C-alpha cells in the first residue's frame, strides 16, 4: 500500500463512524458529503477514475441535495405544527 492509500483509508474509516454517530440529521448530511469526498479520494488511489467520477457526482451533488430537500420539508412541517 502506498501512503496515499493509507491516508484515504484512515479518512474513510473515521468518516463512516462520524456519519453514523451524528444524531442530528443536518450535521449528518454535512458529514455525509465529507465522507463522500473521502470515498472519491479512496477510489482515485484505487485507480478507479470512473467510479470516482460517479461517486463525486452522486456523493458531492445528487445525494446531499435530495437529502437537504427531505430535511427542509420535515423542518417546515415541524415548524407549521409548532405554530
Amino acid at each position, binding site marked *: *500500500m502506498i501512503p496515499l492509500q493509507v491516508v484515504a483509508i484512515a479518512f474513510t474509516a473515521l468518516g463512516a463512524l462520524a456519519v453514523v454517530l451524528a444524531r442530528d440529521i443536518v450535521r449528518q448530511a454535512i458529514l455525509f458529503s465529507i465522507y463522500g469526498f473521502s470515498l472519491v479520494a479512496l477510489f482515485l488511489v484505487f485507480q478507479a477514475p*470512473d467510479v470516482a467520477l*460517479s461517486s463525486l457526482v*452522486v456523493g458531492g451533488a*445528487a445525494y446531499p*441535495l435530495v437529502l437537504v*430537500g427531505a430535511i427542509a*420539508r420535515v423542518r*417546515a412541517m415541524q415548524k407549521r405544527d409548532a405554530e
Partner: protein
Amino acid sequence: MSRQLRTGLFLVSALGLGALLVWGLVGLHSFGNYPGPYGDLISSLTKPQRHTANAVTAVVFDYRGFDTLGEELILFVSAGATAMLLRETREYDVSDIVDPVRSDATRAFGALAAIVLFVLGLNVVAHGALTPGGGFQGGVVLAAAFLTVFLAVEYHAFHRLAPAWFSEPLESVGVGSYLVYGLVALAIGGSYLENVLPYGTWGRLTSSGSIVLLSWASGLAVCGGFLVIFGEFAQENMAARHRRSK
C-alpha cells in the same frame, strides 16, 4: 425490545458477523494482487474487439450491457415511485412558490455554472468510450446543471427548464431506447444487445459501435431520472418556503 437489549444483541452479533467476514476475507489474495482472469481478459480484448479505449465503459455497455439495462430500470422505477409518492398529498400550486431574493451576481454566476456543467455533462457522456465517464456520470452532471439553476438562479426558471412533462419522458425515452436497441439487434438476427454497429476507428467519438449509442441512451435516462427525483425533492424544499411566505 428495550434499546439496551437491542444494542446489546446487535453488538454481540456484530462481533460474530465481523469474525465471519474476516474469516472469509483472509482467504482472498493479498491486497494489490488481483489474480484475474476475467478482468485481464477484458482489458486485453476491448481494444482489438471493440475499438474502445475505456475498458470499464466497454464492460458496462457491451460485455455486461444487460446488467446496465437492469440498473437503468432500477433508477426508472425509483424515480417514478418517488414522484408518485411525493405528489400524492401536495396541496399547493407551483405558482404559489416564492423564490428567495438573490443578488444579480449570484444569478449570473449560477447561470454560467449551469452552462459550464451542461457542456461538461455532454462531454462526459460523449467521451465515455475514450476517457473515464460515460452515460451515468454524464447524466448526473447534466441533471446537476439544471439543478444549479434552481440553487443559484431561481426555482421558477428551474421549473420551466425541466418540468415534469420534460424530464419524465426524457427518462422513459432513454431507458426505452436502451431496451429497444437490444430488440433491434435481435430483429436483425443478432443476440439481444449485441454490438452490431460498425466499430469505427479507435480513439474517435463514434468508435466502439453500440457502446456510444447505449452510453447516450443511458445518459438521457439518468439525466431524466435524476431530474425527476431532484424536481420532486426541490419542490418539497420549496414547499417549506411557500408555507413560510404565507
